[in-house]
């Protein structure tokens, strides 16, 4: 790995073993581009000024239409440069393709709209990713519905998540980065509700209304912290667990403050009365909410698009649905 | 410039004259332009079917067993009969083009009639094949896909049998549509040919429809082994 800084400040932090090589190549291309762009611009500006037409019938200074040497040179130089970039990029990509055999194995499931991260050995999904520093980590990814793409800019890692196929991506983090906690030990957020600390993880393949809210964090921690399973955040009490499952599965489309997202807000949901698109009235009791989770297309609330995916028992157990109900009752 | 009216030479005996379009200098230029344009159009047809062939070959590779069992349900004898019909029609079409070049009005009409008969025969055979499939519960494009157990035993146990048949129906369906369009074009040629519209001085439409018909035939020559024989 070549240690390399970011002179123009236009790249994300270098947090994986890929970053040095990718960035060096990136800046190689930047300098070559700036040099050739500068040359073209200088020639253009110079001739536009120095060779400008001053009288209407002024002929051209030169009528040369051909110069074999010059043409060969300006064919060869770009050829050499792009072939060099090609070979370098290919070598870097070979590293990105093949994960080391001792990499920690994660399972990732993407859906409209969220991520379920299964840490090594975990049976419950997590909202955010925790990885140990200086250890290769490998993600086997599937999609429940449409195309998504796993993108962690700081790791220079990206791979599309394709339904029906297992996709692999890996990286080896080199820099620790934890959540910033407030006095109560809760993660701090900025004014827009984005978490502070950790590296950003995005969905980079368009997947619909919640595409831009599939934003999660990658927390890089020391091996000791990692061994304490910091991802294992499932609370003891049903209400806390309900909120946990909400953040994992529902947050992209249902607000808790009454604002309208893709679906109706959860604030004051239990006992709410309204109409479905077919005109029938409903009262949101427990049975109705259960049905809405398992078979969301059966009854769609008036004014909303029929887009909610079904949550099967494998994705959200009966107990988890019960916990969500307990938590919903607290939202008034 | 170039508004002079050019009339192509017309043989004696009730043939109609052809006036060359205003922007061409000669009848030859007009004929060659039309022919080149039509070849390019045929190239688009080849690319369009090329996409379907690519999809077929790809999925044949992904689900070899499905394609093998699915293909076995097609009747290669009927497919061969249809190949024979189309090959014959290509020959009668070529004879028709020749007749128009030689200003033979009646032979032109008869060769074209034979061509349409062969094409109609092809469509009848295709109808028999399609209806047999439907009769046995092999529906395209619907959720009603439920092949009879005795007709297609263990088909439903394979991966995505409907995909094979949807590809089969799409490919032969789009090809059949081309046969139908060709039949309409040839019928028009018969009508105009009987009026003496085509002769040694001007036979462009006969030549072009002839080219089209050979390409439709050629596509079938690829479809037949791919769908009926390769699996």
């Amino acid at each position, binding site marked *: 790995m070549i240690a390399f800084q970011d002179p123009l400040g236009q790249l994300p932090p270098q947090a994986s073993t890929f970053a040095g090589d990718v960035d060096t190549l990136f800046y190689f291309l930047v300098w070559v581009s700036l040099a050739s762009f500068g040359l073209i611009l200088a020639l253009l500006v110079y001739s536009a000024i120095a060779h400008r037409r001053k009288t209407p019938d002024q002929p051209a200074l030169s*009528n040369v239409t051909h110069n074999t040497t010059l043409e060969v040179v300006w064919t060869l130089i770009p050829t050499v440069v792009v072939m060099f970039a090609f070979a370098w990029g290919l070598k870097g990509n070979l590293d990105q393709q093949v994960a080391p055999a001792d990499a920690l194995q994660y399972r990732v499931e993407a859906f409209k709209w969220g991520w379920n991260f299964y840490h090594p050995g975990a049976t419950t999904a997590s909202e955010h990713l925790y990885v140990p520093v200086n250890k290769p980590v490998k993600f086997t990814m599937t999609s429940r519905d449409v195309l998504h793409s796993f993108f962690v800019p700081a790791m*220079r890692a990206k791979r599309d998540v394709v339904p029906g196929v297992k996709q692999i991506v890996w990286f080896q983090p080199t820099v620790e980065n934890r959540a910033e906690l407030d006095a109560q030990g809760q993660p701090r957020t900025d004014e827009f509700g984005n978490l502070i600390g950790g590296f950003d993880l995005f969905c980079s393949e368009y997947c619909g209304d919640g595409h831009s809210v599939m934003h999660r964090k990658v927390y890089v921690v020391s091996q000791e912290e990692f061994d304490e399973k910091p991802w294992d955040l499932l609370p003891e009490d049903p209400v806390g667990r309900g909120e946990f499952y909400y953040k994992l599965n529902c947050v992209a489309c249902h607000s808790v403050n009454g604002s309208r997202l893709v679906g109706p807000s959860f604030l004051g949901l239990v006992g709410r009365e309204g109409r479905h698109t077919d005109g029938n009235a409903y009262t949101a009791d427990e049975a109705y909410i259960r049905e809405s989770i398992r078979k969301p297309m059966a009854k769609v609330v008036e004014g909303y698009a029929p887009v909610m995916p079904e949550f099967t028992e494998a994705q959200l157990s009966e107990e988890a649905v019960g916990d969500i109900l307990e938590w919903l009752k607290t939202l008034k | 410039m170039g508004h002079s009216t050019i009339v192509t030479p017309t043989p004696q005996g009730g043939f109609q004259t052809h006036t060359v379009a205003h922007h061409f200098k000669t009848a030859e230029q007009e004929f060659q332009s039309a022919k080149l344009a039509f070849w390019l159009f045929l190239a688009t047809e080849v690319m369009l079917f090329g996409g379907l062939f690519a999809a077929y070959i790809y999925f044949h590779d992904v689900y070899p067993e499905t394609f093998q069992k699915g293909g076995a349900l097609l009747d290669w004898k009927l497919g061969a009969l249809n190949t024979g019909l189309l090959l014959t029609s290509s020959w009668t079409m070529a004879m028709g083009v020749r007749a128009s070049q030689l200003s033979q009005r009646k032979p032109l009409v008869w060769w074209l009639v034979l061509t349409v008969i062969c094409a109609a025969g092809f469509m009848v055979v295709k109808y028999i094949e399609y209806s047999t499939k439907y009769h046995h519960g092999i529906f395209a494009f619907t959720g009603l896909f439920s092949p009879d157990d005795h007709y297609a035993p263990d088909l439903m146990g394979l991966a995505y049998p409907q995909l094979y048949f949807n590809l089969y129906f799409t490919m032969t369906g789009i090809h059949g549509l081309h046969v139908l369009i060709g039949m309409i074009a040839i019928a028009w040629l018969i009508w105009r040919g009987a009026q003496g519209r085509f002769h040694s001085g001007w036979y462009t439409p006969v030549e072009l429809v002839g080219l089209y018909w050979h390409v439709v035939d050629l596509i079938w020559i690829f479809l037949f082994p791919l769908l009926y024989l390769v699996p």
Partner: protein
Amino acid sequence: MTTHVPAAETAPETGSRKEPSYLDVTKGFWSWAGTLDHKRIGLMYLIGVTAAFLCGGILALLIRLHLWTPTGAIFESNAVYNQVFTLHGVFMVFIFIIPAIPASIANFVLPLMLGAPDVALPRLNLASFYLWLTGTIMAIYSIMSGAVDTGWTFYTPYSLQTQQAVVSMGLAIFTLGFSSIFTGLNFIVTIHKMRARGQTWFKLPLFCWAIYATSVLQVLATPVLGITVLLLAFEHLYHIGIFDPAHGGDPVLFQHFFWFYSHPAVYIMILPAMGVISEVVTVHSRKPLFGYKLLAFSSISIAVISFLVWGHHMFTSGESEFVMLAFSFLTMLVAIPTAIKEFSWVATIWGGSVALTAPMLYAIAFLIIFAIGGLTGVFLGTLSVDIHLHDTYFVVAHFHAVMMGSTALAFFAGVHHWWPKMFGRMYNETLAKISAVLILVGFNVTFLPQFAMGSQGMPRRYATYIPEWQIYHQWSTVGAVILGIGFALMLGYLIHSLFAGRKAAANEWGGVTLDWESPTPPNLYNFDDEPVVTGELYDYGQGAKH
């Protein structure tokens, strides 16, 4: 061909014509709606694509305004944002930019350059226009009947799960595709069969070479798009299963099919633009094009290679290492003829008699932005760097540099260049120069921040974003507003010139190709006498030193 007569010395043609111009020869609605004249069809296309550009541009402004704040400033939901960017893409790609130069400018200019009275197939030409109109109406109908929110790429399986309007939009694109095929097919035949006496292939102006290469792509690539959108419509309606993993299909196969057309489509957009720039640069520098043959062959080689690079759109989709190697290598190869072109244009200007006219300013703006677009393309062809930049704003900025900053600017350079030939009137050149500068500045203010954001990892097609990037988005929005002002100004003075512009000279810029030999505006069948080519190409009276 002819000895050059400077524009200023030529008396306006008023009253001295042998025949009425194509604009005056017949009047009334049907004389336009039913016309077979390539020039009138070209003008109808010009009006049509400009209107499409206006619609797409307004949508672009809305997108930029929405992104003023991280949570989105103007649309009530992400769904509306998604529909707006989809429509922006569909309008700009399929309705504006693909027909823009070929169907409007080339339709007008190509037969003139060949000394021909019309294109080879005038009826097909009119049919192409009406197919374009039908396709456009169908696209608008799709918007009215329910929204399309798939992006212009219609990736499955998302496009199969979203609303039904995807079907009519697919059929609209099928129709637009055939309109494009008809145009391309017509031009190939026209170039082969309608050239003036003495006009050998190497005496063809470079614009004709560019249009020829474009047309080959239109004819050979568009049918694959046709079958792809047709299958997509079937898939949506009947679940035939080819592209839907739920029925055994493969969504990545759709991407292969889609990009097999849509990558060559990028060259359907840029090749004619290169042709326009070649003509503008030589005329306004009064100097023969430098490296004519290399420029001609580079157009053809770009066309050929462009068929073999589509896989670079799927570098993150799990292609095998060998496939990625091949596509990356071939992508790099395209950079070489592209670089040759840029250098040749600069060498043409060098040592010329450079007139900084409005068309020339647009051409220079093209040369600057095209260099940016081309160079950033190399970043995206480089595998390990592309993995980071894929599907980010870097890609957005890159393809806007090529499509908008290059093709659209070349389109406008061409419009300004041939405007006096088309209408016999001149626009206000001072305003034209101001708008060219506004557009050049506006483009860079819009898209340079997007390159920066993309490098930092801002993914594309985001209705909301993290606040770190707000300042970049705001600069980008400011740039978009500058662009909007530049284009509005252009529209204003162009329309004004039709009614109040001064009469154009017979040969306003002193061009020496056949298009400038026709009366201004041309006759119904273009020329007074059948042109014959005898001299050298691009001979501005000094001969050419090879």
